[in-house]
């Protein structure tokens, strides 16, 4: 990247904000079409039941109702919900878009009603009568694996969806040679993605033209187009997906849902636009959940703290069916289980388990927050066991900066890092040694401060296609218009990340223009070449690189044109302030003239094609591996179990940075998402599979007053996986924060004899842990 920059690396306020702060943005529900109809879903109140019959007659006769469909009506008409993940021998837990003879989770759609008005559709949905015969449900994944557990699928003969193993290095030898083995069962519980905007779909079929337009709140417009076309047996070129403003995703909209295909089908069937907006209750019941892994870990160590080997068995609760990536997510935990430590021998086995719960899938971090929580807790348990400082044991096991690229025994190659530097910086920024002194002083006064450290590495910028289920590249077309403005068409699908700004910064920098000259277009399959979308911290590292490379191609072409006109060598021309100039000869050409020449095509170099349009399909050579170190300070009140967050200090390294303001925003949001998981958030199903946390009254996401100010900082270790050296930052905070908090709380409870406590640290859990430990003494 250029050394002296005008736009790249600068904190610039966002181009997307004026519409968002004035109420002028258009989310799916803001779009209204003439004769628009509304859909409402009838969902199962049972976690597990057979359907004896569905009577739609009363609903069909209700005012305003134009259609009621059941599973039977679309049997063989709409394909099942797609799953892109393939794991050898995995059982086909595939769901039809509407239940046929059996439901396996509360909230599963059984019928859909369409009416001329929103309220009429909801009223009529209440009138659909479904006769269920309830079956025993199983919600605990370990019980689901036990003999005699109720089976979700009789035909499988088991609730185990798959068994996956990974081994690297000589694990038996490692444990034979160990001075000490530390063992712990650790649970990373189920959470919700909870974007502020629930899901929503609007479909409009034009019977004359045979074209179907679908507006969906999705992170993957092109993949959705392909899947809708496949599910409906439609020509893909006749399906146009538009992603309007999207009110957050966090992985939940990296998916293809039954409602998307059904609403499209209904619009085709009725010849009318049909809209469905998810209610928050539906969002909790029927949009994917995240995490839900139980790990049994064993770490073999030398007396000096050197880690020799790790065994990890994960019981992953997949829920009742597969969504797009459900079975794949736990394997990410397996790949990243070593964290940022040189553990020479590892054995991982994962049991993916079917239970009567909503499918889990990618939620911000997707498998890596689990891995990081497991390994970071294990490092602290090992430190406690060996009476070492948590810092010392980490330093002992970090690879040196010179050892990168570093291959882990799980088979991934960490691109670049300097774990020592981020750790040093977070210790300095947090005033770590003073914190320890304060802690000792306060303990004497009966106050329990806890100091937690996590050092993390994550796998990002997803990713090379060889390691991805459905393509890991990204596309970008950049067009310099005859008017002199630049249009960037990106296959990434930002929904809050701010790439309308950061990509415009790239354009303005490389072509020597102003930010306002560059417009970024995304989320429209009719305008943008095929793309993969935004997830896995890939928008900038993969999508941005495609933009960057296309911009360089255009700059090269413009330089060639200008060089031809000026009689200068193109390679020596510079672009600045809308002028192309040679520093040596002082000759210059207004950028507008070079652009005009490309279109008027009278003064082009011989053999050059007219036009200024460049497309790149960027295929990264590897994932990237951002990292960082977080310190968290809490105070626990032993009389109530209350955990108060006092300080949060983060150092993150996402490689080179295009817009630091946006990076800070991503880090803040990620940290708070994880603070939520560690302190407040937990999806709870009862033994019958009823979702007890069915609304925001019962599922607490962090509020402003629950939090204190985060102190963030950065180190910069560029990657060579892409030419900009950027790594991705969308999930960093989410991955680093949970273990920092967990280590802080356990540290606070150390005087009571508590060695381990699983998140979430709700008051009752902390209080009980204190009292249980006291009794045990």
């Amino acid at each position, binding site marked *: 990247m250029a050394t002296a920059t005008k736009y790249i690396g600068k904190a610039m306020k966002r181009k997307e904000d004026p519409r968002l*702060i004035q109420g002028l943005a*258009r989310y799916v529900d803001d779009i209204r079409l003439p004769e628009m109809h509304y859909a409402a879903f009838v969902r199962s109140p049972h976690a597990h039941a057979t359907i004896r019959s569905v009577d739609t007659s009363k609903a069909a006769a209700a005012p305003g109702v134009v259609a009621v469909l059941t599973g039977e009506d679309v049997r063989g008409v709409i394909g099942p919900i797609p799953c892109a993940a393939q794991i050898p021998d995995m059982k086909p837990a595939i769901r039809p878009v509407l239940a046929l003879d059996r439901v396996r989770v509360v909230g599963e759609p059984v019928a859909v009603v369409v009416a001329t008005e929103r309220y009429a559709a909801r009223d009529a949905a209440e009138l659909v009568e479904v006769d269920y015969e309830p079956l025993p449900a199983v919600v605990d994944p370990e019980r689901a694996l036990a003999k005699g557990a109720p089976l979700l699928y009789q035909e499988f003969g088991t609730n185990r969806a798959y068994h996956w193993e990974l081994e690297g290095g000589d694990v038996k030898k490692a444990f034979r040679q160990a001075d000490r083995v530390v063992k712990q069962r650790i649970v990373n519980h189920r959470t919700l993605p909870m974007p502020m*905007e629930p899901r929503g779909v609007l479909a409009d079929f034009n019977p004359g033209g045979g074209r179907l337009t679908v507006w969906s709140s999705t992170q993957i417009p092109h993949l959705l187009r392909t899947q809708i076309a496949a599910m409906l047996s439609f020509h893909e070129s006749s399906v146009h997906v538009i992603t309007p403003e999207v009110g957050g995703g966090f992985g939940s909209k990296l998916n293809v849902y039954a409602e998307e295909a059904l609403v499209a089908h209904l619009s085709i069937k009725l010849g009318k636009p049909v809209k469905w907006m998810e*209610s928050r209750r539906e969002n909790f019941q029927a949009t994917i959940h995240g995490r839900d892994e139980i790990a049994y870990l064993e770490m073999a160590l030398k007396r000096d703290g050197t880690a020799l080997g790790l065994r990890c068995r994960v019981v992953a609760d997949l829920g009742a069916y597969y969504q797009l990536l459900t079975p794949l997510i736990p394997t990410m935990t397996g790949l990243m289980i070593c964290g940022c430590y040189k553990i020479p021998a590892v054995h991982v086995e994962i049991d993916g388990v079917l239970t009567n719960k909503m499918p889990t899938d990618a939620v911000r971090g997707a498998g890596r927050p689990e891995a990081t929580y497991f390994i970071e807790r294990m490092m602290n348990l090992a430190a406690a066991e060996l009476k070492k400082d948590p810092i010392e044991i980490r330093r002992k096991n970090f690879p040196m900066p010179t050892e990168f690229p570093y291959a882990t025994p799980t088979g991934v190659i960490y691109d670049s890092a300097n774990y020592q530097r981020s750790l040093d910086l977070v210790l300095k920024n947090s005033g770590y040694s003073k914190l320890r002194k304060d802690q000792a002083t306060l303990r004497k006064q009966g106050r329990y401060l806890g100091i937690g450290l996590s050092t993390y590495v994550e796998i990002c910028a997803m990713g090379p296609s060889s390691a991805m289920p459905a393509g890991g590249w990204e596309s970008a077309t950049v067009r310099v218009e005859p008017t002199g403005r630049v249009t960037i068409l990106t296959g990434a699908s930002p929904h809050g990340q701010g790439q309308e700004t950061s990509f415009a910064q790239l354009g303005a920098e490389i072509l020597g223009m102003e930010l306002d000259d560059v417009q970024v277009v995304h989320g429209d399959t009719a305008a943008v070449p095929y793309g993969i979308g935004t997830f896995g911290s890939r928008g900038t590292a993969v999508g941005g690189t495609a933009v960057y490379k296309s911009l360089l191609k255009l700059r090269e072409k413009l330089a060639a044109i200008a060089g031809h006109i000026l009689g200068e060598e193109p390679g020596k021309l510079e672009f600045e302030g809308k002028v192309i100039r040679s520093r040596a000869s002082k000759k210059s050409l207004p950028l507008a003239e070079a652009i005009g020449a490309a279109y008027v095509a009278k003064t082009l170099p011989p053999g050059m094609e007219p036009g200024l349009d460049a497309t790149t399909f960027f295929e990264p050579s590897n994932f990237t591996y951002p990292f960082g170190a977080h310190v968290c300070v809490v105070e626990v009140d032993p009389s109530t179990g209350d955990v108060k967050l006092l300080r949060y200090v983060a150092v993150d390294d996402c490689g080179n940075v295009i817009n630091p303001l946006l990076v800070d*925003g991503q880090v803040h949001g990620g940290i708070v*998402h994880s603070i939520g998981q560690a302190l407040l958030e937990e999806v709870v199903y009862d033994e019958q599979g009823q979702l007890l946390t069915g609304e925001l009254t019962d599922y607490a996401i962090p509020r*402003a*007053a629950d*939090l204190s100010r985060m102190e963030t900082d950065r180190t910069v270790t560029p990657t060579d996986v892409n030419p900009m050296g950027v790594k991705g930052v969308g999930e960093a905070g989410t991955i680093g924060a949970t273990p920092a908090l967990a280590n802080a709380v356990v540290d606070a409870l150390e005087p009571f004899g508590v060695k381990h406590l699983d998140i979430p640290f709700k008051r009752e859990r902390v209080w009980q842990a204190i009292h249980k430990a006291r009794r045990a003494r």
Partner: protein
Amino acid sequence: MSLDIQVRVNKKEHHSTIEPRLLLVHYLRDVLGLTGTHIGCETSLCGACTVLLDGKAVKSCTVLAAQADGAEITTIEGLAGTYNGGKGLHPLQEGFWEKHGLQCGFCTPGMILTASQLLTDNPTPTEPEIRRAISGNLCRCTGYQHIVDSIQYAAKKMKGKTERGKGKGK
């Protein structure tokens, strides 16, 4: 059954015939086409639908349109019009833009209107006061820190204006 209501929204009079059960948020969005007010939960827990009703921040998903009969409502579309004769953005809008107080933007209109009531009641709030005041408005993207900064920016700017105004009067 239907009901006639008269509501003044963003300084404009509206006479409408509505279903008695129509929620204010649906009235604003579907009847008046003011879609800047968002629906995030329909249970008054998330705050995305916050508007000013007779100057008070209320969650319009749990107010009936019928209850707003005779009231004066300000939505995000009309907020700028309440400040400095409607010239340019409201300082809160400006603050959110300057301080990166939003990402996906879905909570933003409600967050801004809640903050506007805070600054009316308390022009110089401390950070804990800001955090408490916006705790009925959820945001999943920002972690709230930049939102706090945005509101502080606006408070400073609005205070500066009033103080300058006072200064001139002396």
